[in-house]
């Protein structure tokens, strides 16, 4: 019939496609071969750029080709005039843009773009920022582009205020955008720094952020990004490195120092020294709680015998120096006096385990937040994010007074979200320990954490000077955190779910250890105890191993220092 359009069949189309593809592959391989030849011959010329450009335009993810291109461009930069280099860079950027159009999430392209901009004699940052705008318009969650944007902003000195505004617009288009929230968390402390110099956000702004993020999670409570940001808002900020506690004992002759955050001595310009009666002790060999040198908060030094007299009074001073600490902080040295006739002494700073004091405005805002989250919980029962945020808000507002309530919510959470049940239980344990430690600021020698439902141990660094610790009737499966209990003499771990004693080794002063009704079944489970030199009394009643005579014998053999081993 006349005038009728004949439409190609799919088979025909496929055949055409197939041929085209085969042709493409052939060309690509030929090009690749040629490039390798040239590279091997050390040719750094325009032809190299041209061929690699063709290949990369088809597939931007071949890093080798980008590397070769960089070599060529570097050669240009080294040898050519500024104008020529500039022209080459401009051309390169245009080319890169065309690559990004094909694949806006190619690591190679973005990286090469940043490299080119850094090398260009006169980079056009304004235009670069617009490019970022465009790409973030197409995909506001393109984290490659967010990264590039931060690079551009850094290089071109765009104000943080302008960038903050930019995140505003991105968030209002689609708040499910981690990149945008994250960027906010980086910008806010710069644009609105807190007056106390803590590196946090000024309170007034922080409260506004609470409002903003609240809008987001009421709009869509199942979107995690907003909740994460909220959590950041509630955060206390990073602790500054400081000396927190010093403890000296004559027997064993030892100095222990606790810092406010984990460090690795000798790294990051952090070093710790000690002086006795004003005389620096040379060549201190600090060890962390596991007798190693990795990151830790608690560091001990076995003072050489003779440095301390057996009875005399001494003044011991610990000094911390860290490269990043410019101002002269008093806490960077900490002294304590070891009185005559005393075996030990300690000096500890007051540490707050819960939120620092809040202004009335902030308390009010958070109280409102709590109320609306509770409403949200009613509207949207069993939303884990709402529940978790209720918990976090309660912690922030009144950790001690709302402990029971908090734990209720946590147990509800572990039912609602069983996959993370252990996380919530551990979180509960952490809160309990925080509360206990908060209440017992100047620690007694004896601490009881009996029957608290603990599933994990936290903050054991703060129990380093405790001599008697009762952890009976909890749900502990792991006591590796007990390694910090450097002064403990009596430790009760009855009625837990321990299968191993890892963490109980190398407790220098431990004399009495009770492990009744746990799940210890083999010799290996108690083997770490062999490194506790003073262990005399060990109660293993009610453990599976107690009924096995062979095991009992091996235990006896493995722990010769134990004089009193209770098994039945």
């Amino acid at each position, binding site marked *: *019939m006349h005038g*009728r*359009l004949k*439409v*190609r069949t799919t088979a025909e189309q496929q055949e055409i496609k197939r041929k085209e593809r085969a042709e493409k592959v052939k060309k690509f391989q030929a090009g690749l071969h040629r490039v390798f030849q040239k590279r091997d011959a050390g040719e750094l010329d325009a032809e190299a750029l041209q061929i690699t450009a063709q290949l990369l335009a088809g597939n931007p993810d071949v890093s080798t080709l980008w590397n070769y291109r960089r070599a060529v461009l570097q050669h240009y930069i080294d040898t050519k005039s500024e104008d020529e280099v500039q022209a080459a860079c401009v051309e390169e950027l245009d080319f890169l843009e065309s690559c990004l159009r094909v694949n806006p999430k190619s690591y190679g392209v973005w990286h090469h773009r940043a490299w080119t901009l850094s090398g260009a004699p006169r980079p056009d940052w304004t235009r670069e920022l617009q490019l970022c705008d*465009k790409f973030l318009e197409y995909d506001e969650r393109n984290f490659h582009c967010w990264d590039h944007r931060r690079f551009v902003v850094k290089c071109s000195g765009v104000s943080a205020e302008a960038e903050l505004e930019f995140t505003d617009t991105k968030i209002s288009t689609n708040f499910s955008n981690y990149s945008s929230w994250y960027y906010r968390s980086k910008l806010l402390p710069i644009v609105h720094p807190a007056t106390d110099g803590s590196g946090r956000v000024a309170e007034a702004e922080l409260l506004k952020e609470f409002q903003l993020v609240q809008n*987001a999670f009421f709009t*869509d409570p199942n979107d995690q990004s907003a909740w994460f940001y909220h959590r950041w808002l509630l955060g206390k900020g990073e602790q500054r490195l400081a000396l927190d506690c010093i403890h000296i004992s004559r027997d064993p002759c030892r100095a222990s120092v606790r810092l406010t955050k984990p460090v690795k001595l000798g790294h990051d310009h952090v070093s710790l020294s000690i002086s006795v009666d004003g005389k620096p002790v040379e060549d201190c060999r600090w060890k962390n709680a596991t007798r190693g040198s990795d990151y830790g908060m608690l560091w001990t030094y076995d003072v050489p015998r003779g440095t301390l007299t057996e009875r005399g009074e001494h003044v011991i001073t610990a000094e911390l120096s860290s490269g990043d600490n410019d101002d002269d902080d008093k806490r960077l040295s900490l002294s304590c006096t070891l009185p005559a006739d005393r075996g030990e002494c300690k000096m500890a700073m007051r540490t707050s385990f819960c939120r620092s004091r809040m202004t009335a405005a902030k308390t009010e805002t958070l109280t409102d937040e709590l109320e609306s989250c509770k409403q949200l919980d009613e*509207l949207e029962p069993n939303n884990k994010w709402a529940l978790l945020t209720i918990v976090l808000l309660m912690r922030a507002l009144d950790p001690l007074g709302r402990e029971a309530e908090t734990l209720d919510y946590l147990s509800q959470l572990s039912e609602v979200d069983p996959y993370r049940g252990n996380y919530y239980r551990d979180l509960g344990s952490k809160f309990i320990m925080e509360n206990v430690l908060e209440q017992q600021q100047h620690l007694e020698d004896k601490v009881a954490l009996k029957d608290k439902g603990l599933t994990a141990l936290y903050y054991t660094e703060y129990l380093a000077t405790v001599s008697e610790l009762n952890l009976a009737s909890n749900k502990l499966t792991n006591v590796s955190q007990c390694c910090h209990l450097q002064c403990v003499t009596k430790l009760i771990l009855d009625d837990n779910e321990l299968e191993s004693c890892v963490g109980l080794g190398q407790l220098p002063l431990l004399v009495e250890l009770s492990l009744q009704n746990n799940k210890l079944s083999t010799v290996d489970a108690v083997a770490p105890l062999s490194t506790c030199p003073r262990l005399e009394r060990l109660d293993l009643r009610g453990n599976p191993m107690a009924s096995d005579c062979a095991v009992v014998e091996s235990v006896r053999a493995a722990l010769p220092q134990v004089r009193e081993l209770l098994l039945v």
Partner: protein
Amino acid sequence: MADNLPTEFDAIVVGTGMTECILAAALARIGKNVLHIDRNDHYGGDWASFNMDSMRRWIANHRGEECPPSVMEIPEYSSLLHYLSINPKTENEEAAEEKEKPSPASLLLEGELLVEARMESSTITNVVEKIFVREKSEVEVSKEPSESEQQGTADTQQSTETEQKGVTNAQQTTASASKTHTNEDEQEPSVESVIAEALACTEEEMKEEKEEEDENKSESAMDEAIMCTPSYDTVPTGADAQDTHIMNSTSETLEPQPTADADARVGTEEKPATEPSSQSPLCDAQSVDDDSESTAPVADADAGAITDADTKSAAGSITDTAEAAAAVANAAASSPAQADAAAAAAEWTMERIMKRWRRFNLDLEPKLLFSRGSLVELLVSSNIARYAEFKILTQVLTLLDGRLERVPCSRADVFSSKKVSVIEKRMLMKFIQFCLGYENTPAEYAGFEDRPFSEFLMSRKLTPNLRHFVLHSIAMVTEDCPTERALGETRRFLQSLGRFGNSPFLWPMYGSGELPQCFCRLCAVFGGIYCLRRMPQCVVIDAASNRCKAIVCNENQRISCDWLIMEASYAPEQYVPRPETRRSISRAILITDGALLKEKQEQLTLMSLPVGMPGRSPVRLLELGPSTMACPRDLRIVHLTCVGGGDAQLDLAPTIDRLFAVAEPPSEAERAAPPGESGERETIGGAAATEAERAGPPGGSDEQETTGGVAAMEAELLAPPGGSGEREAASGAVAAEDRGETDDGKPKLLWSLFFNCQDTTDELAVSEDCPDNVVVCGGPDWTLDFEHSVQEAKDLFRRICPDEEFLPRAPDPDEIVFGDYENPAPTDGFRELATDAESRNNNGGGPTPAADDDRTPAPAAVAPPVDVTHGEMGTHQPDNGGGGFYEQESAVAKDNSSRPSTEEEQD
């Protein structure tokens, strides 16, 4: 004129409304031989979109007045006639011709009888035009004659000059473009095609308009085009920024534009502004200059200078911003009196409006598309979407306690809305989620199925605000609407959200009258033949079988057919009896001088206004801005629609008074009513004059945004004392929107048109006498979207061709194999035209395999209207090399006054 149509068809479709057009396309698509005719000289019937000139002639026509002379018949426009379907013949001539024709009866064969078709359309009534502006402003009156004349000549010269230059530029740029972007040739906005277009139409006015289109086209083709651009505009956000940005990609390749509207410069001297900037060291200074002027057709007074600076900096020479700004400073300094003159020039007069007649696209029946509605699905599945482009509706407003509020309907809206509390946010989102799947949880509304929706909303404990939003703005139903139906409406709205953007609706660029023509175009591609100003005089019936055998059209030609499809207003009365009462759609079209709600960016607004009368459907308001091609810069078109009591003015005037500043009629009418004008026509002038001294600079365009530096300077230099406070230059974005609004913040009404249109879908019944092979369909209905037409067309198609597929996907140009020309072309002219169409297609968008086409398929091939705000197809095939079918067609089709689907233009 006496050319004859072929005499045999499988189907004759009468009327070019939406349903008819879909049917015609569907029939042609499966191989039926289709004749498609319309009594009017325009496509679309009661669904048409008009420019201002054809609108006013339509008005006169429907008021039984003599048509005013068309703007287009002024000599300088004469060459345009080629593109327009204007009947240059007088009625006398036609009558004379008619006498020579045989009478219909003489065409009958034995056993046949004639049934007279309806000759007159009577669907439109109560047409009232009101004008609230003066005919001319004083400034214009005094300066006009000499200025415009001079300007005109200058323009022509300049245009010829620059045109050639432009082409050269284009070629150069082609070369350089292909050098730097070796891989992107196909994405370059088809340089050659642009050149071809440039050569194709020498008329400067055409170019100017096309430039504007290109601008828009490019904008809507963001996805490909944006990225090709080697540099970015200085303004990162805003619709206009995108515009100008795209301009850059095309500007160097497009022919430079002659100056914008001549009258825009009345009373000002623009030269100082343009000259300094043209000397700025741009690679292509001349063309950039010209471009920038046409980019922002508001060359109003010194605004031209600003625009100049903006566009130029946008056009790749960001570093030149300072110079451009300096140029602005010079310009302002050189003529300190400019501000005053500019203020005067800002007054809208009828003359000023009519000067821009081509920039209007006024819809008789504006209809939106639900993003997941059946029309969008059909456009996508049939691949017809590539003939159309769309904008996404940007906001849904509501009147809450007498204030205009944005209705939060999407997730992003709900998040950023400051009008609802967080708890309300949650409740609203929850309700939205429930509505999306309401059928799955019938228990949630058990007992409410047939009870009013408002009661159900109460039972859900939604706050009054939320109830208002859901009821009036999302479901858009009346309070007594049964819950189950309202839930369905709510879900329809919500389901469509987010498919293309942050609102459920698409609006067709150039008006919803474009859409029927998209189907016509497909029909024509598949051999359909088009003829305007033809209608059946009589239907020929075989008496024995009572089947329709043919029609006798108004040229007294007998044309036989197997099927006759008629829009109800054409159908013989004895087949389609007219019901005694029929639903009447009350319509108003307004031209206003600003947006209802001030926003930085131009908005496309929908608002549903309950009328507060039980049982009465709400008034639906649609506000369109220049970016939709509905109107020139600085204006807004407002459509009001409701099912009313039969008098549009009575039904809609209260709503208009609530929302707009309507000037009082003057004590003495300045505008002399033309002779023969009936008393009904109201002309209002004087009041407008008092508004002339409005504060606010006239410069810039509505959504024009400028970078901080320029903006600040602009504000400083141009804002008259007191006016600068209105402008916020701080953020680097200046919204000039607030200009042109009266003190109480309402936009001012400049012009309005009321009419009633019968909803022929209401009570559409076909009598038993009607032959089986005569199919009758309705005209535009009162609803918001095209759902009814699509369904009707599908149903009728199934009746005609029960076993055929309804509009299967049409092939893309590259899927078509040509060369099937063994059969000699038929001798009659129409066939040749059809052949011509295809052979041109062959040359152009045809099978020329694009270099690299699997890498970046044309957007149309993937998912037609799909990309975010627009689907641009057909007219902007990125890969076709030559000035082919699509380009030509776009040149024709985008002309406002007539958008013939293809080439069956007679004469």
